[in-house]
């Protein structure tokens, strides 16, 4: 048991609350709607202020199969990851993911180059199969994302989904679409608190309310810049709680994407016997990265491995129990 908090700080401002998903009465079709943010203090310091919402886990799924998927993920997702709709449904219903993050990697012109119609179709199908809010990500190629994401946004108008990522060089099209269709937006900055703040100002200048922006501070996995990401998040959250409205947004951390890119998560035991079983190693890499992000103030974690999701979800529930005690 950690030592009791001895110094109580009174902060001047809470983090914005972001609502995800709209039910029938609000013009959407979500049976489950969620809220993140609203923190009045630093992570898990329940004695110091309210932490009204439990951090969420979104499962990351892809529209088209990924060639470079590590063995442990490929094996454990066998049978579900071929079809994104089945994948999404299974991870929500069987594993307990709070929401689904669909990455439209296939629309990339150098990749599968699937059509905008296919993307719209897929997102609509997933919306029909799961009753929770979605996160919709483009492929990262600005031109293509600006063609496709507004169409997906329009087709899901009123569902209050979360779209990403807006970056400093390319935020106007996506912001305009999200404002028009009632969605939230992810503002991504390259582990840089100054750019995070600037991008929030730029997006809000277009008319996006501050409580519909979430910060993707960009993280590195354990051993790959996690400590740097941690200090950026800590600095932003301190400023937010001290009254800086332009940083008072919740955080989304792309844990799965980063941790499964780490050598330690990917290299098979045959290549590096001393490191032990790759499956176990990869899962722990994702879990430790996720737990660290939570301690830095993450509100949404996007994750990949079912076992890692289960472990982190149960740890979150343990941590949040102290809110009641």
């Amino acid at each position, binding site marked *: 048991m950690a030592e009791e908090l001895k110094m109580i700080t009174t902060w001047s401002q809470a983090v914005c609350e972001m609502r995800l998903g709209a039910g029938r009465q609000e013009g959407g079709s979500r049976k489950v709607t969620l809220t993140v943010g609203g923190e009045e203090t630093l992570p898990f310091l329940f004695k110091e202020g309210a932490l009204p919402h439990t951090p969420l886990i979104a499962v990351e799924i892809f529209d088209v199969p990924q060639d470079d998927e590590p063995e442990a993920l490929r094996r454990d997702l066998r049978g579900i990851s071929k079809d994104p709709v089945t994948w999404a449904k299974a991870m929500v219903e069987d594993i307990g993911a709070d929401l689904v993050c669909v990455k439209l990697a296939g629309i990339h012109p150098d990749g599968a180059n699937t059509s905008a119609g296919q993307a719209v179709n897929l997102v609509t199908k997933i919306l029909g199969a799961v009753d929770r809010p979605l996160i919709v990500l483009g492929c990262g190629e600005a031109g293509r994302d600006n063609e496709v994401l507004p169409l997906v946004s329009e087709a899901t108008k009123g569902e209050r989904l979360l779209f990403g990522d807006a970056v400093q060089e390319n935020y106007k099209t996506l912001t305009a679409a999200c404002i028009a269709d009632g969605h939230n937006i992810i503002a991504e900055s390259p582990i840089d*608190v*100054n*750019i995070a*703040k*600037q991008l929030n*100002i*730029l997006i*809000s200048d277009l008319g996006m309310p501050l409580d519909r922006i979430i910060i993707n501070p960009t993280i590195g996995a354990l051993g790959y810049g996690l400590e740097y990401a941690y200090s950026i998040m800590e*600095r*932003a959250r301190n*400023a937010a709680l001290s*009254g*800086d*409205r*332009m*940083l008072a947004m919740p955080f989304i951390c792309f844990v799965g994407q980063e941790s499964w890119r780490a050598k330690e998560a990917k290299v098979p035991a045959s290549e590096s016997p001393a490191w032990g079983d790759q499956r176990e190693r990869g899962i722990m890499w994702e879990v430790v990265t996720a737990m660290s992000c939570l301690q830095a103030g993450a509100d949404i974690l996007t994750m990949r491995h079912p076992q890692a999701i289960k472990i982190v979800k149960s740890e979150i529930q343990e941590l949040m129990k102290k809110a009641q005690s």
Partner: protein
Amino acid sequence: MYIIGELINGMYRNVREALAERDASAIKTLARRQVEAGADALDVNCGPLSKDPVQDMRWLVEAIQSEVAVPLCLDSTKQAVIEEGLKACRGKAIINSTTADTDKLDAYLALALKHRASLIALTVDKKGVPQDKERRLELAAFILERAAGAGLDAAELYLDPVLLPVNVAQNQLEDILRVIGDFKLLTTPAVKSVVGLSNISQGSKNRSIINRTFLVMAQAAGLEAAILDPLDQELMRSLITGALILNKAIYCDSYIEAYLKSKLKS
């Protein structure tokens, strides 16, 4: 920096006329514009020519708070005027000001406690404005001792080292800058300080640049609050940039806009 807007003062002709004609809209506009420019609180002063300052204070307070909801800094040398302002004030009030003379100080401490108001205390007494840093500190220590005895939370107290015009007492300004830092050593947590900025350029040419240069120097010395003209855009921009350099705000390219957006909480 806690900014107290100074423009609602009967010393200015537009306010004097608004008072004489009971033109509330002129006062409301002044209040609104100052808050929009970044004022955290508004100074309210009927001016030296008011024939009925008690009633004028009440009318001003009512007019202002029908427009904005910021704390009001009730500014008068007369206790009856301050009391009327406190009675009329629905939100937080700051009493501006008491001197370090025992009778006045004790009476104002009691008023601050009764109305849960903050209190600005000038480090001057009947003997006049101190001529050096030591005397200012001595008076500050006396004020803090009486405040602690009366039970006023140090967070509700602002010490004012009393700025003198640069063309009158140029040799004192460096001492005043130093004493702002020294005030902080007197208590834990440190007591806050405030200045009436425009005094420094009273009777000078180039008032604006004198004001803003002193303000930034005082900010670096640790000044917490200032009574100033928030519509002086260069002054405000200097102040916001000063806060950035002191690492009180996180840099971004639009840091001035970000500062103002953070102030104007909807």
